[in-house]
């Protein structure tokens, strides 16, 4: 029997208060010592683990529309633009915000017809004829706002919830929160159609999270991953090298960066068989290839079709987060400061059939109800012209859409004003989008934290609201 004055714990509440009286630093110390209770214990190797609550979605496919498609030419029809076409927007709309090029022209009606689609009657313009066949799967967010009117900062913000370079990409946060279910493939794959977003590869970086969670860039054609073919002369040499490396760094967590590097080497070694198996489309039927447009005469469709088909194959293999970047279509990304008709048409033609095929194929294979598909760019475009036939950047109101797991299909959430200029209802910040994506994957955006620079940092910073209105 122990002495009655022996307190079984090291530090009584009274002791703590006595010592804390000289400075509240001790409370902070207690919090630090209790570290993992505040966030998730960091994983280096990224093995699978449960989320905070049951997940609706197993995988996320982010169809990133580089450059910022125009909302009033795609999913947000505004008849008033027809009526006031050619008039001075300052007279019609009122005060305008500064634009990037300060070259405000007249009100510019959409060159494309809008039609109601599916049983839900969702409005979709003639830019996306194929997408109409899956309209009832789409949940269109017409009240999106961006915080930056310029590509680089807006891309960092869209990808990492922060307008500066260096924060973890959302794909990395998913890997950090849930780990990777497939040890032979990275948990975050970027299928690069050719365009690298302004802001560069930092859009897919792990930031301060372990390097294991960074986005791995795959090419859709040719050799998917650079240097994936083993260079060792004899089979097994590489395995022996990795074993030696593992022995040198024995003991666990000596240096997280080294652990992560070794884990990446291990993944790379396993990818040497997994990636060729992934990219070999030989087992896909002719019907499937035709569905996606893998053999289309349009080069953009061909590339993006392959990307979408690979995305489905990655989902089948349990890869957590897949981002698709756009292909080159001969001129600019969705960034039509001029030549709106040709530019938007070519960009849309590349992605329309492949995206519709992806939703259709995921649905018929029963995968759409465990996959969240997100479509959109870093901001929208002005309803008035830049110069004669362009549209400038518009962060005040634009469109993204969600489809798949846990999302109410065939619906519209949010609204812009009568000109499609500013979001006035269901205003949705990128933080809200991130919170909703995490929620659908079983993660609570307020509890998914990583301690860096003395703070428990979240993807949603101190913002974010789960859009329960759009959840099924």
């Amino acid at each position, binding site marked *: 029997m122990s002495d009655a004055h022996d307190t079984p714990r090291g530090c009584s509440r009274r002791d703590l208060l006595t010592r804390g009286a000289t400075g509240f630093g001790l409370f902070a110390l207690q919090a630090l010592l209790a570290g993992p209770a505040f966030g998730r214990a960091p994983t280096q190797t990224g093995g699978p683990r449960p989320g905070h*609550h049951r997940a609706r979605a197993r995988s996320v496919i982010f169809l990133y529309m580089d450059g910022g498609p125009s909302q009033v030419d795609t999913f947000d029809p505004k008849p008033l633009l027809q009526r006031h076409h050619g008039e001075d927007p300052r007279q019609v709309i009122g005060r305008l915000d500064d634009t990037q090029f300060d070259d405000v022209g007249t009100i510019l009606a959409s060159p494309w017809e809008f039609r109601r689609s599916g049983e839900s009657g969702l409005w979709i313009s003639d830019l996306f004829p194929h997408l109409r066949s899956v309209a009832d799967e789409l949940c269109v967010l017409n009240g999106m706002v961006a915080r930056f009117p310029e590509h680089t900062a807006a891309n960092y913000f869209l990808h990492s919830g922060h307008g500066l370079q260096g924060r973890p990409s959302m794909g990395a946060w998913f890997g950090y929160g849930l780990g990777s279910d497939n*040890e032979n493939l990275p948990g975050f794959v970027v299928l690069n159609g050719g365009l690298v977003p302004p802001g560069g590869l930092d859009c897919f970086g792990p930031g301060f999270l372990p390097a294991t969670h960074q986005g791995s860039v795959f090419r859709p054609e040719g050799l998917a991953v650079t240097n994936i073919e083993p260079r060792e002369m004899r089979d097994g040499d590489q395995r022996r090298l990795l074993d030696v490396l593992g022995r040198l760094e024995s003991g666990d967590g000596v240096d997280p960066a080294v652990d992560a590097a070794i884990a990446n080497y291990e993944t790379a070694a396993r990818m040497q068989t997994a990636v060729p198996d992934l990219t070999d489309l030989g087992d896909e*039927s002719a019907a499937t290839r035709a569905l996606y447009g893998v053999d289309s005469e349009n080069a953009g469709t061909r590339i993006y079709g392959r990307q979408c088909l690979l995305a489905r194959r990655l989902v089948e293999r349990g890869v957590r987060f897949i981002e698709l970047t756009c292909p080159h279509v001969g001129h600019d990304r969705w960034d039509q400061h001029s030549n709106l008709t040709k530019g938007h048409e070519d960009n849309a033609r590349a992605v329309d059939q492949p995206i519709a095929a992806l939703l259709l194929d995921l649905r018929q294979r*029963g995968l759409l109800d465990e996959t969240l598909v997100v479509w959109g760019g870093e901001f929208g475009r002005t309803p008035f012209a830049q110069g004669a036939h362009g549209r400038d950047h518009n962060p005040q109101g634009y469109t993204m859409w969600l489809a798949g797991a846990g999302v109410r299909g065939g619906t519209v959430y949010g609204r812009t004003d009568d000109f499609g200029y500013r979001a006035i209802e269901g205003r949705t910040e990128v933080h809200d989008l991130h919170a909703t994506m995490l929620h659908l994957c079983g993660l609570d955006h307020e509890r998914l934290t990583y301690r860096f620079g003395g703070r428990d940092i979240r993807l949603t910073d101190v913002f974010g609201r789960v859009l329960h209105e759009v959840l099924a």
Partner: protein
Amino acid sequence: MTSLQAWIDAARPAGVLHPALVHAPIGLLVALVLVELFARDATRVRRVLAWALALSALVAAGAGWLHADGTGVDDATIFWHRWTGVGFAGVALVVALLSFASTPGTAWRRGYGLALVASAAAAGVAGHQGGELVHGPLVFDGWTTDDDETSVADAPQHAASTWLASCVRCHGPDRREADLRLDTSEGLARVVVPGAAVDSEVYRRVALPRDHDDAMPPTGTPLPPETVAALAAWIDAGAAGLTVASDDAPSWTPELLAEVAATSGALVVPLADAPDDPDASRLRVEFHTRPDAFDPTSLAALAPVAAHVATLNLRTTALDDATLLAAPHFPQLERLHVERTAIGDASVDWIARHDALRHLNLHGTSVTDAGARRLARLTSLERLVLHDTDVGLAEVSRLRAALPRARITVGEASWPTKPTDDG
């Protein structure tokens, strides 16, 4: 009317402030009585205090009304507390109105005095009832004895419950301090770590020195040293008799999951990691991320955790009918993926035994009409994927009629409507 309801719903969270707010009118009432006793000519003070009393009583009663609906406590007690509280607020309002009667000796002034006495009485009754709601029925030490019938109602273990009998007065069916009942297995399990008295909260509390903030009991006689010693010995010996039978408690440990994962080759992960979430004990078991690890013994290796498996994914594995028919039963199975495996109609018998199934993916299997027909008994199905199987459209129609809740997916591998242009 609906907007009024909306306002009430919006204000409802403020109801939790009721226990704090009630102290304002009580304090003001005391002050007002003191004014009447010792400063009868302080007319302005009287009026100010009387109106402050009335307003604070109305606010407290309003908050209480909102609070009452959310507590879920005994209806009769709530009913009477609600009306004595409202009555108190009403009488306090009368006090405030009559406080303008300034001439001593008039009928108005006598009415004021009576109203003040009545409000004090109402405050006493409402306060007592409120106290009972918060702390449980009034219990005096000494009136309740250790062999009182209620105190050790379903005690699981004679030794522990005898030693802790005096704790049960506060941590029992009546008062539940700290939401802890020491007369139930569940409650004891929260404060006992079998085999380790030093890690057990109950032992720590009763062994602490008297002047420690955490010491238990907080007042009165401490447990005798021999009782504390017996308690420690019982816990150190494994807390015999203390077994927690709860439906939600997982019967697996992380070590068991790791072992099952290793022997089966599957990914075995809980659905959630919040301890109070029933999904935290349910598992997803998946082979599709490593189909090469699947072999005919894999499913049998899941037997130790079969009762907890909610999701089983066998997509693209070497599964066949014989392997699946030999698999254990998964009573909680909600989601089954067997797409693109070699199974056929024979496997449907095994599948159809899993009544809890909500999602079944048979895409790319050789199931035919005969097999599909036997799925009609799975009335919980919400999703059935039959794309690229040998099930005919006529059979699909029959299934749709038999399973109206289920969305049944068949192939649509070509464009359903010809796109209008350059497709």
